[in-house]
């Protein structure tokens, strides 16, 4: 895992991508109890806006001996999925990521409040499951969360979610 994160970091250092952050299940796992997931999702801001933003990443990794298989690249035994930022919320979430340490490696994870907003936006069944755990187990900056949710039109959805799963606003 350290080698995987080191290589992902290298993509930024070598200017293959502009910025990155761990999202998805592993970001949730950083804040709550361990949960089962199989992918390491890396949200990234590409260097240039083009149709095929994945090509430079896949090319760089191929040169290092790592090949893409379906939607993943297996890097040092970990299936990594590179996801370009697909809207303003995700882009801002990557920009305001928090730096965390995994062993000796420094990496970046989506901030908790942004992660909640992204999960509320995607709102798949697994997002709802994770959201329940996040609200039960993590320490959330509610002021910041409210600001983000209002900015991206997700506040009403959040209120509905809270009512549905916790019976309160």
């Amino acid at each position, binding site marked *: 895992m350290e080698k995987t994160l080191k290589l992902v970091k290298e993509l930024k250092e070598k200017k293959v991508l502009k910025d990155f952050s761990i999202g998805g299940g592993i970001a949730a796992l950083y804040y709550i*109890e*361990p*949960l089962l*997931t199989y992918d390491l999702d890396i949200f990234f801001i590409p260097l240039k806006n083009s149709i095929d933003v994945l090509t430079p990443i896949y090319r760089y990794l191929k040169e290092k001996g790592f090949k893409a298989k379906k939607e993943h690249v297996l890097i040092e*035994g970990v299936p990594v999925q590179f996801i370009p930022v697909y809207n303003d919320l995700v882009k801002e979430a990557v920009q305001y990521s928090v730096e965390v340490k995994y062993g000796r490696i420094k990496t970046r994870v989506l901030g908790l409040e942004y992660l909640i907003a992204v999960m509320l936006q995607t709102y798949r069944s697994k997002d709802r499951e994770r959201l329940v*755990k996040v609200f039960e187990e993590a320490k959330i900056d509610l002021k910041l969360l409210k600001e983000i949710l209002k900015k991206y039109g997700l506040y009403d959805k959040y209120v509905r979610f809270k009512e549905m799963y916790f019976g309160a606003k």
Partner: protein
Amino acid sequence: MDFMINMLDLRKCTLVQNKVLENIIREKEKRRKDLSVLSFKQKIHILVLLQKMARGVTKQGKDMERIVWLI
């Protein structure tokens, strides 16, 4: 009268059961919170154990090429 006593016993028994349940739920919550504050590395270690445990469990109609991470 016997009926009343039985009802009271039943109520007591339910209350005791509720306390047991309450304890179980409280302890489970505590365990989840304890797990949530482990280091990132410890959590990834547990994740790999979960992946190993789930190996072989498949969902109907799903392509289950699941890779257990090498860490």
